[in-house]
């Protein structure tokens, strides 16, 4: 095998393609059968596998060099095998995050699960790392990045057609290609033998997916509960990068969160739409007879309908249509024009076809306009024509679209949403008719964080909209399980307050807050030890709001676009509480967030081990300051890369308003452009100070993007989606190319000054990518995306300084 061989380029491209594809597909499998948080961890584990490979290559370098072809062949064979075994183990290890802190075995299971995740990435990276060490860096890095970008894009599109589990099998089959290419270099006979073995291996895996029960969903997910009911069956399922939607039918399946205890009308059996196995959205049987859906009037969201006088019930905007309960509620209360937003195309398809008969074909009813768009994008585009009063809404209803418990446990702490930010609520307030109301319903959680945070967001949105007496514009009621918040641009009238009281009295709901409420009115039917919600709202509409926010045991600072809604309520003093009371109270303290911190610590520990061990074992002759500078340089550019990538994604997702697709497109374009930059790295900034200049260029571009990207893209905001995607992609070209320079230039320099350190430097770079991915997420949760970007500037500046030092060794 010779340097520059086209076969190596193909091998690295396909390996990188499958590595990134596997990362995304595994994240989808995890979100479907287990939990979203595990999906976030996969990125970290992938990088850990990469990092470990760098250290191993450095330790085994003489051996690999002597038997380069055989080594590549071995790694290329081990890669698809580890993909298969790692995937099977990942699915079969019985880890239950809810038992962490109670069952010591769960930590062992978690470690094995993390190992199973990291294993294929380790072997895949052995292929890439070996190629980087022994072949031309710029070309290999180009293949690595373009392969990764193509992999990300391909999987995003495959996710529209296939079950995530099938995509993993497709990826495993593709991962055989590098092995076959190498065999082809040896002889035709070897290639044919390898091909037969590969086909057999993939075929066996495909056949055994059901036998091994790999698709079994955790028994603690909502869909598992539904499937234990009599006569339960999955009627239909649809895939997309957004989520897997499954429609379930079963005897006794109902979802009526917050239903009044004294509902005098029957509740029908629903069919359920489950999103990634969670968050059931009910489909009620309907034939136009409103008596069958009268129960909807006995649930807290109905208050908002009652607050709009009958003569004003003209236009309603339903955010999150799902199974159509919002439409039925609007029909029941006589709204004349309905606009429904549903971000998931699959839901619309299911409701318009398979469940049209059962649901009374409500998605096609004459007075309804169904819009397949993200709520933020709609709010932005609707603002232009909503200036005319007749285009505004009398009621905007944000349906309860989150799974019960996701906010309470901190399980979704890494999963941000831009729907519940101060800016988003302001945009919706702008769409209201003068007398209109905006309503949002939430689960009542323990500990009490979510409802209070949401109220705080609405209060801040009202204040930013120029409303002075915010206390007069807010109503909050609760049932046993849910709460409904209603706000208006106008003060609530005495009549509306009377309606609220009557509504609550008749249904045994408690009014928590409305203008003029007295504390004794707040706990009439549901008594808690302290009137936590009422006290919180009173404080938040008073002068002491900031002091209350700071003193509250959980994080309730309002979410803004720079620091969106993360389902995160953790505060550091809770660690002290856990240490004092033992792990048993962990359930009450946002443990999902703590798990992230523990994983970050584990990643840091593993990184240090993998960085230091090779240096110790190799009895390195290089001067310690060089090792330090090398390590610091590659860790700085790795951290910098992710600290740029994550906030940029945030900015562009907000621009594109379609998170899943835009993430794939952005990731792919950034990687491909960085690959292009790497390919040209020999020609851009050649010479002694090229490394310094390239880092300085990245720093300057980050500063320009930080301040100028929004302005640059603003004129394209109203473009159709493909145009916006093209604009976003094009805008990434200069920065992407520049970000592709520091790594190959650095590695080329390492080849000059200490060739044995190439793989190690590659490892350090990847290991710090682990810390960077988790670290960037944590900094974003705590301080916002702008802070992440400012840190990126510092990292690239530090890299520029370090490159001067490295150049002096050359």
């Amino acid at each position: 095998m010779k340097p520059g061989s086209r076969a190596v380029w193909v091998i690295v491209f396909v390996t990188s393609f499958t590595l990134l594809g596997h990362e995304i597909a595994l994240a989808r499998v995890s979100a479907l059968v287990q939990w979203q948080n595990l999906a976030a961890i996969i990125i970290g584990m992938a990088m850990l596998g990469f990092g470990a490979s760098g250290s191993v290559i450095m330790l085994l370098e003489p051996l690999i060099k002597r038997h380069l072809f055989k080594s590549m062949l071995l790694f290329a064979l081990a890669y698809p095998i580890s993909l298969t075994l790692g995937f099977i183990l990942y699915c079969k290890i019985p880890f239950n995050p809810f038992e962490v802190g109670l069952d010591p075995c769960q930590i062992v299971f978690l470690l094995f699960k993390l190992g199973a995740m990291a294993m294929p990435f380790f072997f895949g990276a052995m292929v890439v790392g070996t190629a980087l060490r022994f072949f031309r860096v710029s070309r290999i890095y180009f293949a690595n990045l373009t392969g990764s970008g193509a992999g990300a894009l391909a999987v995003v599109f495959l996710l529209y057609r296939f079950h995530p589990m099938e995509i993993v099998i497709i990826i495993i089959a593709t991962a055989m290609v590098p092995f076959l290419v190498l065999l082809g270099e040896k002889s035709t006979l070897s290639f044919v033998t390898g091909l037969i073995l590969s086909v057999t291996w993939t075929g066996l895996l495909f056949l055994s997916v059901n036998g091994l029960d790999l698709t079994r969903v955790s028994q603690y997910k909502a869909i598992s509960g539904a499937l234990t009911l009599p006569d339960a069956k999955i009627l239909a399922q649809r895939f997309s990068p957004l989520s897997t939607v499954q429609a379930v039918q079963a005897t006794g399946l109902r979802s009526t969160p917050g239903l009044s205890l004294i509902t005098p009308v029957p509740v029908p059996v629903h069919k359920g739409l489950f999103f990634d196995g969670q968050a059931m959205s009910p489909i009620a049987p309907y034939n136009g007879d409103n008596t069958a859906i009268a129960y909807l009037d006995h649930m807290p969201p109905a208050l908002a309908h009652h607050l709009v006088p009958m003569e004003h019930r003209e236009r309603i905007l339903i955010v999150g249509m799902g199974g159509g309960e919002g439409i039925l509620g609007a029909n029941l209360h006589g709204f004349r024009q309905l606009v429904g937003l549903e971000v998931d195309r699959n839901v619309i398809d299911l409701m318009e076809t398979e469940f049209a008969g059962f649901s009374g074909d409500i998605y096609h009813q004459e007075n309804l306009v169904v819009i397949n768009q993200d709520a933020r994008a709609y709010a932005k585009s609707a603002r232009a024509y909503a200036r005319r009063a007749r285009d505004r809404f009398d009621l905007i209803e944000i349906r309860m679209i989150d799974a019960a418990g996701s906010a309470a446990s901190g399980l979704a702490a890494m999963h941000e949403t831009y729907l519940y930010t101060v800016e988003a609520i302001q945009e919706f307030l702008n769409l209201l008719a003068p007398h209109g109301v905006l309503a949002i319903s939430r689960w009542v959680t323990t500990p009490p964080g979510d409802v209070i945070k949401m109220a705080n967001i609405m209060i801040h949105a009202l204040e930013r909209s120029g409303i002075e007496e915010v206390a007069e514009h807010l109503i909050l009621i609760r049932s046993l399980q849910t709460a409904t918040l209603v706000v208006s641009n106008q003060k609530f009238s005495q009549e509306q307050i009377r309606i609220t009281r009557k509504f609550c009295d008749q249904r045994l709901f408690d009014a928590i807050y409305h203008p003029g409420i007295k504390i004794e009115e707040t706990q009439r039917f549901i008594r808690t030890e302290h009137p936590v919600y009422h006290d919180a709202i009173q404080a938040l509409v008073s002068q002491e709001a900031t002091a209350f926010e700071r003193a509250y045991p959980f994080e309730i600072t309002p979410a803004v676009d720079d620091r969106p809604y993360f389902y995160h309520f953790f505060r550091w003093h809770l660690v002290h509480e856990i240490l004092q009371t033992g792990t048993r109270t962990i359930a009450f303290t946002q443990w999902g967030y703590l798990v992230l911190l523990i994983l970050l610590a584990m990643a840091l520990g593993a990184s240090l081990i993998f960085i230091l061990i090779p240096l110790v074992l190799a009895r390195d002759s290089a001067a310690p300051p060089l090792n330090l500078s090398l390590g610091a340089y590659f860790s700085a550019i790795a951290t910098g890369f992710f600290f740029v990538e994550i906030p940029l994604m945030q900015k562009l997702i907000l621009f594109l308003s379609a998170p899943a697709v835009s993430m794939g497109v952005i990731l792919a374009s950034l990687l491909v452009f960085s690959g292009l930059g790497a390919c040209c790295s020999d020609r851009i900034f050649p010479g002694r100070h090229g490394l310094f200049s390239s880092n300085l260029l990245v720093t300057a571009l980050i500063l320009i993007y930080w301040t100028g990207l929004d302005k640059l893209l603003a004129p394209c905001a109203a473009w159709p989606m493909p145009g916006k995607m093209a604009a976003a992609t094009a805008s990434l070209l200069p920065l992407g190319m520049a970000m592709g320079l520091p790594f190959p230039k650095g590695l080329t320099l390492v080849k000059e000054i200490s060739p044995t350190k190439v793989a190690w430097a590659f490892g350090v770079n990847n290991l710090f990518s682990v810390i960077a991915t988790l670290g960037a997420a944590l900094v974003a949760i705590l301080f916002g995306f702008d802070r992440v970007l400012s840190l990126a500037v510092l990292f690239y500046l530090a890299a520029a300084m370090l490159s001067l030092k490295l150049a002096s060794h050359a």
Partner: protein
Amino acid sequence: MRPATVTLLTLLLVWLQPATAPADMTNDPFGASRKKMVATQIRSRGVSDPAVLRAMEDVPRHLFVPEKLRDHAHEDRPLAIGFGQTISQPYVVALMTKLLDLTEASRVLEVGTGSGYQAAILSRIAKEVFSVEIVSPLHLRAKQTLKETGCTNVTAIHRDGFFGWKKHAPYDAIIVTCAAESVPPPLIQQLRIGGVMCIPVGPPFRVQNLLRITRRAKDDVRTEVISQVRFVPLTRP
């Protein structure tokens, strides 16, 4: 009857004994664990109702958990029993039983038989226990265990708990042992005026609110949030 036949029948009776008679407490290997459980987890946390404590000491909890978890049966936590369900932590069972204010004459409806353990505890205190379970395998298993532990005053049925069991209504107390997304209104209608319902609300294996609902008049129902529970009560009393 010939001696051989008598011997054979005696042997047969001895062999059948564990399957039909209540568990033999004197040879109960878990008796000491149960006593310790009651002393350290229940009495020490303020449940002092003698009837509840006696029931908790009497009922062989280990028989209601999956065989592989029997050694953990008396630990201070819930255990998974399959189908996404759990057998509640001993303290929660005791607390919920106490909250029902049962007497020897009480007629109780249990929604969500689950493992059958809660029904067994109730059966030691109340006159009659009616228990409904929608998941068929759980119902069959619990019915068998209740029979094996001699709970003759429990009537278990496989049906949708949403509608309660109107045939035997009204009930002095209703206990919902599966964490519910909402409280089914038919259950309130089957509670006699003055009756009490106890229900945990919240997702399984996560923090739940333990509620006591009292029906004061036909359409007057009051709810108290008694405690937040998951595996132990919240540190705040």
